[in-house]
């Protein structure tokens, strides 16, 4: 082998191994578990966001929608709608949510509370209902 051959060999090996390392690193970054976050939106705009673990049991947060204040309350690593100015109270009937991908929706008051984070337990992309 000439020097040029060896150079080619080294470059190719380097490229190949480097690309594996790069893909590996990217994957590691993707699967790193992100902490579950509670995201509160009004009319599609994020108005509040905090780690689920930060909301203590019994702790409340207010969200202002077009009808007035919706109040969410924390539990043991879970959250629910405690009170809402809407007429149908569907959001309150939703109960506790705790897993990434779960959401509480209050249509009349335009409030969405959902949980984001890595999704090891979520086995679906959307729900027909």
């Amino acid at each position, binding site marked *: 082998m000439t020097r040029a051959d060896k150079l080619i060999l080294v470059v190719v090996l380097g490229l190949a191994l480097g690309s594996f390392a790069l893909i590996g690193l990217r994957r590691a970054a993707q699967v790193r578990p992100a902490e579950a976050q509670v995201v509160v939106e009004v009319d599609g705009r994020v108005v509040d966001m905090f780690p689920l673990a930060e909301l203590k049991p019994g702790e409340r947060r207010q969200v202002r929608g077009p009808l007035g204040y919706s109040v969410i309350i924390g539990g043991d690593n879970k959250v629910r709608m405690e009170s809402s100015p809407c007429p149908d109270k569907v959001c309150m009937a939703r109960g506790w949510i705790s897993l990434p991908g779960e959401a509480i929706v209050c249509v009349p008051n335009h409030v969405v509370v959902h949980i984001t984070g890595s999704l090891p337990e979520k086995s679906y992309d959307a*729900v027909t209902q």
Partner: protein
Amino acid sequence: MRNRGPRLFALALAVILLSGCRARGPGWAGQVPLAKAEKTEFMMDTVITITAYGPKAAEAVNNAMAEMRRIAALMNADDPKSEVSRINQNAGKRPVRVSEDTFRLLKLAQRYSELSGGAFDVTVRPLVVLWGIGKKDKYVPDAAAIERARALVNWRDLILDEKARTVYLRRPGMGIDLGGAAKGYAADRAREVLLEHGVRSALIDAGGNIWALGRRPDGEPWRIGIRNPRPEHGGELLAVVPSEDLTLVTSGDYERYFIRDGVRYHHIFDPRTGRPARSTISATIIGRNSAEADILSTALFVLGPEQGLALIRKLGNLEAVVVTPEERIVSTSNLEDKLEIVRQEGGTGDKGR
């Protein structure tokens, strides 16, 4: 020329080593993240979310959302200025000229009103207004009032003139309600707009009416859950359906309802009795046209597992799942293999979540 051997060796090595990358995922496309766009809006009495992937995803989602707003404005029976309201205001008076969208959907709705023997009836509005589920407070009308409203519900008195593109309700007091069709139609239109923008992977969630366009960006089919109508028995989800280019629509008795004296009154009426339908608690249609699936999920809900599934089989190219009042899951036979039941059986459920 004498050095060609080693060079070929290096080349072969390169091919072998680099080809290793392909086996790790769905090809190189999977390594380059596709642009993602997502938008949520409140309309049609519900919340709509569109998620799309592709180079023009943001523009596609904005335009698809605008198209859904346009459809919603045409068909909202609670807005006195909508086309549907103008038809209702002119019941028994005169035909009303409407847009192609409204005409097309009413034609489809009338066809399925007939095919379902009136289990779905697009002229159901008098019953919707009388009961006012979600609007009036736990109101149960008396039998005479129900009978009067029921007598005004009849798809045969909806006159569609194809040439003039006019719609006429024959008797005063009649009314069209596209609550069981417009969301599906709007989702179909949104899908068209996404496709026109080159989007090949997207999810449209129109208040629980799902359009799963193409596959997920990772190359797998979308996984669409069907809500468990009684989450206190076995958790939030009933089943998961791997879906590629499919729309899924569910009608359930848990969306808008109240309970009085231990009886559940919900928003899906049997036009033949004038009262909430009782033969199922959830009905899901899986197909390729969301307006059709929307209408048929109502028909299936009202007709019940036997007659309803018989109708779906007769129509062809559709799959369906129903949950009976006893919470038994019944589906079309083709679906049995694909349906992943995730409801936890027998337990007390996870009410605490």
